[in-house]
């Protein structure tokens, strides 16, 4: 077992990047992520890594530099938050569609306006359709473990895809927790030497990246991209199995908490899952069969696996820390379409009643009372009370 330390989420993730010893790190600071690249810059200055550091003039440039370095044939990392991710937007699509396995911690933060630096999931959810793999993390340990695994996943020969590792801004990035590090050598052996594919710097074999593809082939390339995303689940599970052997810590496509015999359940991402699990326990003590599902892999979304885990419930609340104004929350949309595939179309399987709560926007504290309110409402719905409002807000002053 590696060293046990009391560190912030940012420090834990920075250490995972150090242990991966990337060839190139392109960076641009933004709260609450700055601390990661700042620490990483110190590792470079102190000679703890062999990385070429590129101080870019914006996140757009930072992602562009990452793309160039990755196409050149190196292991590449960067990190960002919020507006920074938004500014990377067009380049995110280019990184994924060009099959460049760039690893990027995303410290989740609200999007402007109004300007807000605190944690919510608007940034990551907005990047849902960019073709990146997304792993979400409840705490510093998961953020560290997911970052280590991200290298193996993204760089896998069947995928070669960029990976975003998400954790909640401030709540996790700046809070100190106990974590277990792996030894440097363990991480080095686990992720292995970087193997490049079609590197531009292989001068014996000249090649071109970024060609113009018009009506005759564009759609075929998009179809191929979908196919490659379809291979991700298996790789994530295989890597998780190896990681378990190494660390003793188990990961899957999602975490299922007291769900097997539950009647009511909550779907919730990241740090709020920790608070909610305590409330699940409290409801169990009262004799109410509550459970929880915390997605880990959000892109590609494991529709059938999640639907199978939820379909026996009587009522489910999907929690969203991001909004789609005039629409349901982004996680709700996934869960309801996942469930429809197993319970709809005359399948004869009873559908759980679904509600959607928007919570914690702009870093608004998510308290146990809010989870209690949700489980109380679910309990009533499970016992026959009607669903009054599908989408509603909690923790907001009325």
């Amino acid at each position, binding site marked *: 077992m590696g060293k046990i330390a009391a560190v912030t989420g940012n420090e834990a993730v920075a250490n995972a990047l150090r242990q991966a010893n990337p060839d190139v790190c392109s960076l641009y600071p933004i709260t609450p992520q700055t601390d990661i690249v700042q620490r990483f810059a110190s590792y470079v200055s102190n000679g703890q890594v062999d990385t070429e550091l590129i101080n870019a003039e914006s996140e757009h440039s930072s992602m562009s530099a990452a793309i160039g370095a990755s196409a050149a044939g190196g292991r590449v990392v960067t990190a960002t938050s919020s507006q920074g991710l938004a500014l990377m937007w067009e380049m995110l699509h280019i990184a994924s*569609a060009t099959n*460049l396995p760039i690893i990027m911690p995303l410290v989740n933060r609200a999007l402007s306006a109004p300007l807000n630096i605190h944690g919510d999931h608007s940034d990551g959810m907005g990047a849902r359709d960019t073709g990146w793999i997304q792993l979400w993390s409840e705490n510093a340990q998961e953020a560290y473990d997911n970052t280590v695994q991200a290298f193996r996943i993204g760089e896998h020969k069947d995928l070669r895809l960029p990976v975003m590792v998400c954790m909640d801004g401030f709540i996790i990035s700046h809070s100190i927790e106990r974590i277990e590090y792996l030894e440097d050598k363990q991480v080095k052996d686990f992720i292995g030497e970087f193997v490049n594919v*079609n590197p531009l710097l292989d001068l014996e074999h000249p090649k071109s990246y970024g060609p113009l593809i018009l009506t005759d082939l564009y759609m*075929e390339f998009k179809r191929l991209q979908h196919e490659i995303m379809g291979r991700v689940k298996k790789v994530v599970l295989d890597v998780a199995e190896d990681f378990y052997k190494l660390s003793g810590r188990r990961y899957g496509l999602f975490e299922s908490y007291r769900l097997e015999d539950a009647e009511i359940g909550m779907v919730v991402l990241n740090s709020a899952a920790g608070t909610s699990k305590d409330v699940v326990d409290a409801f169990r003590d009262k004799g109410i069969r509550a459970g929880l599902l915390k997605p880990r892999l959000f892109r590609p979304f494991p529709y059938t696996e999640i639907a199978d885990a939820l379909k026996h419930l009587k009522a489910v609340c999907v929690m969203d820390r991001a909004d789609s104004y005039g629409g349901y929350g982004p996680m709700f949309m996934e869960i309801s379409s996942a469930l429809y595939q197993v319970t709809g179309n005359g399948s004869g399987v009873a559908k759980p009643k679904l509600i959607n709560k928007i919570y914690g926007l702009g870093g608004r504290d998510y308290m146990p009372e809010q989870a209690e309110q949700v489980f109380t409402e679910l309990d009533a719905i499970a016992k026959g009370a009607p669903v009054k409002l599908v989408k509603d807000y909690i923790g907001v002053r009325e």
Partner: protein
Amino acid sequence: MKKWKELVPGAVVLEAGSSEKFKTGSWRSFKPRWIEENCIQCLFCWLYCPDMAVKVVEGKMTGFDYDYCKGCGVCARECPGKKGQKAIVMEPEGK
């Protein structure tokens, strides 16, 4: 036409010099015409052509490669010609 299963992931073109296969001359609406008697063989046209559409053989301008010439007119603009008489003139395509 290739099917999606036959494509190289990431749309990487693994073959060097493949742009030769992509004939762009059909984009042209104006066409450069070389007037040999006005040519002083300065090769400005070859130097300035943004494509590789000026055909130079043994150090001498010999005409245009119309498979790739897009008719941008840069060569005609830069051509000094002889005593003010241009050695390249642009003419509407199909004239």
